[in-house]
């Protein structure tokens, strides 16, 4: 007989699955809006259940054995869920994000036979299962369910661009699935069990073992592909840019960061006993993370397709999260966990604004939209606020996560990584602020012929009132700003320590207080430069354009959209991880 809080653990996974099966069975009988209502109800109940679980998990991780197969004599027979406080809150955040996304998508997917809701609910169940499980193969199952649901959702528009993006997404993420399965096979061959704790014990017993290193290499590569870390990041911009806006909210707000969340959990729990892996982690994660933060930020600045810009900004922020994990301290990982929530809230809001523009102005091109946003100025205020938060405005959860990550990095003397986190945030903020200024204030030069967007015509159905689309967006931003920092500061040291299976740490160190302000200032300066370049004296403009043109062209050349290129870079990335593991 299972005691009370543990009893709840299967429900956040089972409820969306049951609702999705019911919708599929009865779709043709249900009246128009019922799938919307059912989906919102399911997402809200997931959020509430996960929050309750997280509250109880504050006293210690809650464990649940499916089928009643509890471990006997150290042999793990069945599958278990193990939820610590942090995992519980992350799942609650995801449920909440889904609920608001369903509100945002209210009526958006008319005439779809409930297919959108079915796929989204499966996606939700998979994400919760992914955060709760303590079994390596079960982790893979939820990883794959996420991928399969996501492939179809990406291609939903069935336009040429969305099919191309979905194909790239499918191929790269299927490769990730193969890598992960291979890694699990290796670790199972050596450990003889699939349970996190069981593997961890076997790894700790084994000493330096190439099989363990190989398993880590493959699993880490798979999770980094999900997390869009350079050089695995190519698929993300292709997919996020073309998916329907409500789906992009989920992709950028939770799917990408969940990959990194998984990486943090696997590194801290499963591979804790391998000195080789633990030595390689800081080099790998901080190095790749810093590089990703810079490259993503720069690419974001180069885009005029708003959703593609936001997608690259997600890559940049994924890099910052990865650097946080790489610090291997409670501060770094705790900061990453807060960052996941803060970033998800802000980025979700931004993708909703992109959706609002697609629906009301029938375009997603920054230049073509110049000045067209004046009529929907409330969205402009939200976008400006989101841009400032993205660039590091010291307010709300995203900022708190940033400062914790920066604190962990500066404590260990990773000066370059520290700078990369600030610069990455500034670049993405600059891109968003520039777009906000151009679209909602009509700033910047008159584009003339350039206004014709090079991408194909895109629009989304304009059948919803503005307030209905804006309300969930503002709710996300308000949540980011309103989460009381003291609450996080109080709970986080305990939660991060429990997440990493380490003894509780003291208060967490925050980074220098001036750094967020510096990156906000840099973000505003970057946005100003982008908008008023032609009014600046030549002496300022010329050196900038001279130094940035060659690397920019190289970068654009690399983002070719060709799947063969992406696969080649993927192999290079796996080789890079293997090389670092071999050298430490």
């Amino acid at each position, binding site marked *: 007989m299972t005691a009370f809080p543990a009893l709840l653990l299967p429900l956040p996974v089972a409820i969306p*699955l049951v609702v999705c099966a019911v919708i599929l069975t009865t779709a043709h009988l249900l009246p128009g809006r019922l799938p919307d209502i059912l989906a919102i109800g399911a997402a809200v109940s997931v959020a509430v259940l996960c929050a309750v679980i997280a509250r109880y998990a504050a006293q210690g991780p809650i464990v649940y054995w*499916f089928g009643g197969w509890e471990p006997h004599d150290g042999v793990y*027979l069945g599958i278990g869920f193990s939820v610590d406080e942090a995992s519980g809150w992350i799942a609650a955040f995801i449920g909440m994000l889904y609920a608001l996304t369903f509100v945002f998508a209210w009526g958006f997917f008319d005439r779809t036979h409930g297919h959108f809701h079915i796929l989204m609910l499966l996606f939700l169940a998979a994400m919760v299962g992914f955060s709760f499980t303590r079994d390596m193969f079960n982790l893979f199952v939820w990883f794959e369910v996420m991928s399969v649901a996501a492939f179809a959702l990406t*291609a939903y528009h069935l336009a040429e661009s969305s099919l191309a993006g979905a194909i790239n997404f499918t191929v790269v993420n299927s490769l990730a699935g193969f890598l992960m399965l291979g890694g699990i096979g290796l670790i199972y061959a050596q450990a003889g069990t699939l349970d996190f704790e069981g593997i961890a014990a076997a790894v700790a017993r084994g000493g330096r073992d190439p*099989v363990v290193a190989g398993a880590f290499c493959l699993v880490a590569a798979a999770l980094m592909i999900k997390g869009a870390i350079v050089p695995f990041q190519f698929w993300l911009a292709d997919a996020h840019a073309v998916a329907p806006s409500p789906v992009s909210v989920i992709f950028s707000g939770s799917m990408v960061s969940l990959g990194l969340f998984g990486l943090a959990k696997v590194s801290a729990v499963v591979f804790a006993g391998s000195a080789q892996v633990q030595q390689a982690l800081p080099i790998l994660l901080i190095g790749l993370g810093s590089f990703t933060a810079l490259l993503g930020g720069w690419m974001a600045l180069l885009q005029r397709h708003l959703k593609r810009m936001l997608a690259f900004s997600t890559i940049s922020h994924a890099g910052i999260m990865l650097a946080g994990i790489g610090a291997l301290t409670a501060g770094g990982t705790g900061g990453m966990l807060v960052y996941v929530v803060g970033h998800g809230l802000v980025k979700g809001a931004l993708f909703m604004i992109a959706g609002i523009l697609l629906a009301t102005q029938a375009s997603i091109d920054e230049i073509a939209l110049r000045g067209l946003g004046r009529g929907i100025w409330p969205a402009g205020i939200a976008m400006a606020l989101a841009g400032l938060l993205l660039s590091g405005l010291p307010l709300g959860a995203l900022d708190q996560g940033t400062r914790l990550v920066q604190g962990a990095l500066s404590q260990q003397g990773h000066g370059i990584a520290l700078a990369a986190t600030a610069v990455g945030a500034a670049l993405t903020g600059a891109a968003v602020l520039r777009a906000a200024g151009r679209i909602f204030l009509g700033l910047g030069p008159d584009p003339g012929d350039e206004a014709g967007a090079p991408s194909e015509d*895109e629009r989304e159905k304009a059948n919803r009132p503005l307030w209905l689309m804006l309300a969930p967006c503002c709710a996300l931003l308000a949540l980011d700003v309103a989460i009381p920092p003291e609450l996080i500061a109080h709970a986080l040291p305990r939660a991060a320590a429990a997440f990493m299976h380490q003894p509780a740490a003291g208060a967490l160190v925050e980074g220098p207080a001036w750094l967020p302000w510096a990156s906000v200032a840099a973000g505003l300066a970057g946005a100003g430069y982008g908008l008023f370049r032609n009014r600046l004296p030549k002496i300022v403009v010329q050196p900038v354009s001279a130094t940035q043109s060659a690397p920019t062209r190289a970068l654009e050349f690399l983002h070719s959209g060709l799947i063969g290129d992406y696969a*080649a870079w993927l192999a290079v990335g796996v080789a*890079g991880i293997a090389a670092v593991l071999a050298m430490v």
Partner: protein
Amino acid sequence: MSPRFRIALLVLAGLVLMPAAAQVMAALPPFGSTIARYGARINAITPEARHVANMVSAINFDLRGLDTLGEEFMLLAAITGTVVLLRGRRGEGTTGRAMRLPGRAVIPRSDAVVLGCRIAGPLTALFGLYVVLHATVTPGGGFQGGVILASGTLLIYLGEGYAGWRDSIRSHWLDALEGGGALLFALCGLVPMLTGAAFMQNILPLGTFRDLFSGGLMLVENLGVALAVTGGFTQLFLEFMEETREAEEPDEPGEESA
């Protein structure tokens, strides 16, 4: 990137990965030398604990039933996704009757084919049912049996022609079969919780070892999988065959993007 550069990159990566892979393979336990402790333990306890002769079914539906539940819904996601992609521009509307391209001749099939299909069809369905029902005794189970049953419906197409096939298949029934099977499986997890047991705990009488009715709850879960797989795969066949059908009325502008 030029193909040459791409291959150079791949070769470069291979130069690092090959020695690493060789090292990993050398360190793996030799092939067939040991049965993993996990497998040995399962072989030792399941016949007694679950009265089941087919270990694979015991693992799939009981010990690691949650994985199978995940896989079942992954299949559902894949089929729903395929339906979304294939319906494409022709939209949501489905017709109850077969569509045919004007001007294309309907080639009559030979009596031998018709007779062969009429004999093989029921036999295939029977065999599918057999595989489904004996999940806990002999190799096979709901998934395999479900695929066989769905292939049986294809024999109707082969023997009776497209119109005949469409007369015997209803898209809504398939949705109901697929969703209902998945729902049954999910409920097999939830219902034991009402009695105070764990999610998917085997609370039904276990039956006799090597008997058709052995394994308790596994049989119900297995039935759910069989229903879902039969419905899902037949739905796939239907969608693939209808793929080229055009929309009946042109969409309003902008509608197709949502």
